[in-house]
């Protein structure tokens, strides 16, 4: 019985050997290399089309699997691929995988940056919207409260604070943009430009919105002082400066299809903003000087404002030389006090930042003011009168002596 079982097992083993030999023998070399080519192509496609680390997951193991599965047929594959070889193909696949992994890593970093940028923009927009809402509300309250002076003053103070808060917020945003894009090289610009195509909104659009909002704020503003308009002008100056420094990079990065057109649009918006501020600024400055007893000639630009100051000081200095009156001296003291304490003291930085007056122009006014100051104090006649009296006394005594002798 045992012998029969052993015989049966031997026959079965022999049959299995024959069948397995037949299976091995049934392989087609042509089919093996065709299968290798197909599997290789599929892996190449997967590597080349991978756009995320999830796509790359398992690919490295599959490449290892391909190499392990076909390494025993490398001679056949070498012959089929000549002049390439099996190891060339596997190396190429691994190189592609490494390059793809590197690209995906860069893309994912860029995506992260874009996500961060989008979040920043969203937060910025929300904050701006809040400030706008607050500003509109304050403006309405201001319009309604014209009867109550105290309340109006408080509202104006609040309105001014809102503007300052907004300026500080936008300045922070611009500083942030400057830090990010001022020293960005061309290749990073190009990489971000590719990723930025997915942005719904971009920094250039946000800047355009900010400028438009500033323009409408300037248009709608009322009851503000020269200092407020000078602050707007200074903010405009800062904005224009930032745009000069990073405008090219921003437009090349975020609007690569039409950078020139975008730059022109922003420049036009900046010009419109300045025009809106200027309309109010020159009136407010003229009123401020008038209210302090300084009648400047009319001015509608930085240059004509500087000319008006120069003409006023020069004319007054000439009048002081000619008339040398107490009244002229009082005019001088009034101007000098207003110029030093208010114009230079309070507005100095804003005038420079807003490109209204330069430091050299202010120094020039100072020099003219010094000349005026030297000639302004009226000269005293007391000594001349005393001399005349003394002369009259002497003459009287001489006459008296002569009369007595005779």
């Amino acid at each position: 019985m045992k012998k029969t079982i052993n015989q049966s097992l031997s026959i079965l083993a022999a049959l299995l050997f024959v069948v397995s030999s037949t299976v091995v023998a049934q392989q087609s070399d042509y089919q093996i290399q065709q299968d290798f080519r197909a599997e290789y192509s599929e892996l190449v496609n997967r590597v080349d089309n991978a756009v995320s680390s999830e796509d790359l997951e398992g690919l490295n193991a599959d490449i290892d699997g391909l190499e392990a599965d076909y390494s025993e047929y490398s001679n056949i594959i070498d012959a089929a691929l000549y002049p390439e070889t099996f190891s060339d193909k596997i190396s190429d696949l691994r190189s592609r995988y490494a390059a793809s992994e590197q690209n995906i890593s860069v893309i994912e970093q860029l995506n992260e940056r874009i996500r961060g940028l989008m979040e920043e923009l969203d937060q910025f927009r929300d904050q701006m919207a809040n400030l706008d809402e607050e500003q509109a509300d304050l403006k309405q309250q201001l319009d309604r409260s014209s009867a109550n002076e105290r309340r109006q003053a408080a509202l104006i103070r609040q309105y001014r604070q809102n503007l300052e808060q907004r300026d500080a917020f936008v300045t922070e945003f611009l500083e942030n943009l400057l830090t990010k894009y001022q020293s960005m090289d061309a290749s990073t610009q190009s990489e971000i430009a590719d990723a930025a195509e997915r942005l719904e909104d971009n920094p250039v659009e946000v800047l355009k919105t900010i400028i438009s909002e500033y323009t409408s704020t300037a248009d709608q503003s009322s009851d503000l002082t020269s200092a407020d308009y000078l602050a707007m002008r200074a903010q405009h100056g800062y904005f224009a400066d930032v745009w000069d420094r990073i405008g090219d990079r921003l437009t090349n990065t975020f609007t690569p299809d039409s950078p020139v057109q975008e730059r022109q649009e922003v420049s036009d918006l900046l010009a419109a903003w300045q025009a809106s501020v200027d309309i109010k600024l020159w009136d407010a400055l003229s009123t401020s000087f008038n209210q302090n007893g300084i009648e400047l000639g009319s001015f509608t630009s930085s240059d004509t404002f500087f000319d008006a100051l120069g003409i006023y000081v020069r004319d007054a200095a000439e009048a002081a030389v000619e008339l040398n009156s107490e009244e002229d001296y009082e005019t001088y003291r009034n101007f000098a006090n207003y110029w030093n304490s208010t114009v230079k003291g309070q507005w100095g930085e804003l005038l420079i930042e807003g490109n209204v007056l330069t430091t050299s122009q202010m120094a020039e006014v100072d020099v003219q003011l010094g000349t005026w100051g030297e000639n302004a104090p009226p000269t005293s006649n007391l000594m001349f009168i005393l001399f005349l009296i003394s002369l009259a006394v002497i003459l009287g005594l001489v006459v008296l002596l002569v009369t007595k002798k005779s």
Partner: protein
Amino acid sequence: MAKPTITTLAMCVAILFGAAACGPSLVIQNVDYSQPIESVLSPDSNNEVHDQRYAIKFNVSNLLEEEGSSSVDQIRLIRNNAGYYFVTAAGFNNVYVFETDEGELKLKNKIEITGQGLGQPAFNQRDNYIELVDRASGNTYNLNHEGRN
């Protein structure tokens, strides 16, 4: 009179053989013509197959006629180390062995494989023979230009 003529003729023949012996006589031995992987070729509308890699182009109409079929999807072709071409196709009963000649392939041998036609034939180059496998039936045949081993 006859002797000098015979002598002259013998000399002429000797000169001719000598001249022939002085002609091209270089022979390279042990040439291995073996094609490592079979070529699988699709006939065009004129029944011509063209193997770009191994640079051979021929018409298979006569083969089809010989096999009694009108068309075939693919022709399988391999060359052994001796330089003979082995040709077959799915549905063929035979493997045709050709030797090359000037502008032609001459049938060297027609090896009968089956009476039912091959299902999925494939040639493999092996050390001293050509292996024919029929992946449909699982049969394997070892061939050389003289027939089955």
